[in-house]
């Protein structure tokens, strides 16, 4: 089967293509070179005047796992406002802040997304994360396994184990949890909270292990690099939401000593203490540091106004902030000497000083970071806003008059604390394609996604150009997933299941002896039962595992 997409205006930053009219050919789910003239085209889509990009990739979205399902169970009142009836190919479900898995998959595809990555896979809960992602149709999935507050890692660090042993443990964790990267949340802090510490700054010691977050970040960023895992250590910083945390964030950037690091939802970590209310924007300092330090990337975690729910592995911060929640309820958990979680519903209000300034800080960061290959479009779904608000966010970035109009309606005190009105930058389609496609694929390590070159998977989105970018990005004309037409005029026409992307860095299997002893002594399940097998993901044809290439293990770099 040979399909031709003809005459579309193509944005493919991975190949430097910026709005060029060209044809794309698809065979057996892959993009291929232009075939011989003698070959029969089975199907042609005439895309003259349409915008063509690779399928979009959400590199940080909470779509599966324990805390997401706690949030679902907790919020029947939110679901009731957004029921999704069975229609056509799609089964019923519900949407808004934490959609059911089916509805999440459909809605991602309906706005042109073809992949999403769950950023907080607790190794002890990895099976659940994959079960939920396995029931999320349409898009490819993957997860980052959480380390850094687990007792085994902290014990190894406290015992001054060789970096190679740490690297083996990190690689083992990736394999056992079927992950594509490693995330650290509030480095060491989740563990410290279990010992009743309430804050843990970068150089503060965990009272039990005598370890600082700085050591955790450095060791793990180095491990990820030395293992050749393409995705840099994915870091949710310490002191989330605390005024003044901009200092912690800047120090964390320096703390990894040049190893690659991705700082996630950086908006929540860019707060100063200036002004009457001791809450101010640290965006310009953060952007300046990102611009300068090429080993650093970040996604924003933009907040948008309205009801949502915050779900996080950072139970220390969530417990601290629970009283700000709305409606007032909270679930926190200590989890398996491995991690934790906290779920707090939240309503961001445009007339609230702090919320309005958070909104402005996020946009300032977007607009002040020069390199779109190192800044990514997220709302930290659902923490800043549900992912369905992405088209609105894109319009805020691409349309300065719209942005300024919205800004002018916000809490007046917040306006005086932001430089947003003076920033005239507008993102281009090419830059949007970098942030949401080429850059995201490169960052996550998806070698065959996010671009439109020969050999790439044919995950392709086609839009009608529209000056109203929110309308344009909300409803693509066509979405192709692995070469199949799955969305037409913004509605699902075919249900597919997508794949699970992983990496399998090499490691010394000898590490299992130590891990098994640890499980047998201290855990409540066997080590073998913690591992998520290939069969569990692939049985029933629900998913297939794609192992993305690692760069090969590096020798010690320090």
């Amino acid at each position, binding site marked *: 089967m040979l399909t031709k997409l003809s005459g579309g205006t193509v944005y493919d930053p991975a190949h430097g293509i910026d709005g060029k009219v060209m044809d794309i050919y698809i065979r057996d789910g892959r993009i291929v070179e232009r075939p011989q003239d003698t070959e029969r085209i089975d199907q042609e889509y005439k895309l003259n005047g349409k915008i063509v990009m690779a399928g979009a990739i959400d590199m940080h979205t909470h779509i*599966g796992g*324990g805390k*997401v*399902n706690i949030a*679902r*169970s*907790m919020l029947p009142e939110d*679901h009731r406002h957004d*029921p*999704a*009836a*069975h229609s*056509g*190919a799609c*089964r*019923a*479900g*519900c949407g808004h802040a*934490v959609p*059911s*898995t*089916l*509805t999440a998959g459909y809605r991602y595809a309906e706005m042109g997304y073809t992949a999403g990555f769950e950023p907080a896979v*607790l190794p*002890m*809960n990895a*099976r*659940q994360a994959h*079960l*939920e992602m396995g*029931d999320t*149709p349409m898009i490819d999935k993957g997860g980052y396994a959480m380390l850094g507050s687990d*007792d085994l890692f902290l*014990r190894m660090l406290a015992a001054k184990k060789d970096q190679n042993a740490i690297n083996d443990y990190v690689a083992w964790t990736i394999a056992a949890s079927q992950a594509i990267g490693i995330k650290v949340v509030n480095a060491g802090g989740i563990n410290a909270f*279990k*010992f009743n510490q309430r804050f843990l700054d970068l150089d503060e010691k965990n009272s*039990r292990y005598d370890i600082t977050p700085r050591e955790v970040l450095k060791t793990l960023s180095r491990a990820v690099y030395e293992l050749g895992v393409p995705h840099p250590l994915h870091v949710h910083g310490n002191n989330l939401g605390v005024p003044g945390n901009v200092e912690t964030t800047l120090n964390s950037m320096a703390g990894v000593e040049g190893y690659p690091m991705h700082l996630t939802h950086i908006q929540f970590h860019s707060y100063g203490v200036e002004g009457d209310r001791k809450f101010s924007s640290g965006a310009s300092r953060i952007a300046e540091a990102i611009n300068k330090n090429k080993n650093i990337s970040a996604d924003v975690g933009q907040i948008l106004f309205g009801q949502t729910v915050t779900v996080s592995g950072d139970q220390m911060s969530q*417990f601290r902030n629970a009283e700000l929640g709305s409606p*007032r*309820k*909270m*679930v*926190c*958990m*200590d*989890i*398996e*000497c*491995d991690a934790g979680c906290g779920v707090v519903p939240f309503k961001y209000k445009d007339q609230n000083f702090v919320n309005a300034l958070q909104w402005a800080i996020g946009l300032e960061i977007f607009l002040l970071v020069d390199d779109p290959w190192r800044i990514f479009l997220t709302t930290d779904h659902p923490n800043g806003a549900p992912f369905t608000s992405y088209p609105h966010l894109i319009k805020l970035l691409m349309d300065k008059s719209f942005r300024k109009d919205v800004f002018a309606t916000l809490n007046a005190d917040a306006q005086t604390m932001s430089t947003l009105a003076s920033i005239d930058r507008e993102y281009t389609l090419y830059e949007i394609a970098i942030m949401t496609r080429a850059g995201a694929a490169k960052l996550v390590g998806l070698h065959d996604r996010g671009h439109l070159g020969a050999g790439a998977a044919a995950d392709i989105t086609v839009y009608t150009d529209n000056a109203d970018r929110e309308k344009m990005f909300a409803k693509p004309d066509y979405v192709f997933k692995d070469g199949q037409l799955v969305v037409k005029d913004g509605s699902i026409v*075919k*249900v597919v*299941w997508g794949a699970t992307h992983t990496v399998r860095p090499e490691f010394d299997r000898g590490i299992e002896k130590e891990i098994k002893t640890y499980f047998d*002594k*201290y*855990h*409540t*399940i066997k080590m073998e*039962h913690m591992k998520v097998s290939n069969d*569990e993901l692939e049985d029933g*044809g629900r998913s297939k595992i794609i192992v993305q290439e690692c760069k090969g293990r590096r020798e010690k770099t320090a």
Partner: protein
Amino acid sequence: MDNFSQAATVVSVTCPCCGLLCDDLTVQRDSAGQLTVKENGCARAVAFFARAVAASEPRIAGKPATLQEAITKAARILGDAKQPLIAGLGTDVDGMRAVMNLAETNRTTLDHMNSNALFRNMLVLQNSGWFNTTLTEVRNRVDLLLVVGTDVVSVNPRFFEREIWNKETLYNQDTAKREIVYLGGRGLDTSTGIAPDGRKPDVIECDMDRLPEVVGALRAFVLGKPLIANEIAGVPAATLQNLAQRLLAAKYSIVTWAAGALALPHAELTVQHLAALVIALNKTTRSAGLPLGGSDGDTSANQVSAWISGYPVRNSYMRNIPDYDPWLYSAERQLQNGEADALLWISSFSPERVPPATDAPTVVFGEAHMKFDKEPDVFIPVATPGVDCKGTMFRIDNVVSLPLQKLRDSKLPALAEVLRAIEQQLGQEQGAAIC
């Protein structure tokens, strides 16, 4: 690949009998598929695995039928109904996924056999929340365990053995010094709460129906509120005051309860007191709640239902959207009021969990040894996950899920296979790719 026709000893077997999902059992299989627990089985597990391989023949109105005939008949009953109900839901993750699909296709209402107990927790989660913990944290951290309204062992027999009196912990705690306090109920079996060195637990008794008052008073003392009472439901105020002080002084206390044991009107308010008490303790020290119990896949059913529909059970696809109502969609109520006009009852683990009495046409997919006072219209014996087929199940802490092994060849179909066949039969499958 296992050769199930040969005798074997299988280690690290996971037991699905209760919410603990102990995964350290050793089970011996003879060449006929008869299983015997050799190591680490509680009495319940021993009896569970010892069940003989049963006849796999389905029945229609008590008469033997082929699987295909039984599926056709069951599909007709469910398809003809205006308000079909799938209840019991004694199954695992794989079975529950298939239940959700059939329910969605056939616009069906869902309820679990343990829902009355489950709601004592779920309503608290939805109304105010909690701060809970998981079993490995308990095993390594607890210094004061407060057990409320239950003996624990009758619902989770190995809890004390595995999580409290374990020898080693990550932080070199002397587990023999762990303090155990039972609060509420009378004449409970507190023997498993006796420390290895013979130290007895503290037992504070009260009538179960007065437990809400006692727990409310304890919460007040934890919050430092003055209480004008010398005794609460026969418990001296000073005893509760003292308990509150011990909780405040503990480094990592755990407050546990078993929802099934709290057979009180509006027991959710008592659970809410416990949850709020734990949250209050966390202002100054560390504490966590731990709901115990769990059976017949109740935790798994709620998890799967929540991610696929957005809601835990009791929910319904009757209106072509998922809909949730803890009162309206009670199976018991739906059957008593004659609202449900067909019942599919599922009980893959427990032969004794039979459907409630009803005049509605009834289909049962159940454990092969099930016996009925009133023979259902259709009975299909199905595989028990963890014995006859593999599966996946959630532990009571709602975080850890475990693979269940197939231990023998019994010819019984997996529930999911039967449900998929029915869904196909109903001929309504929209989008064949969704399975």
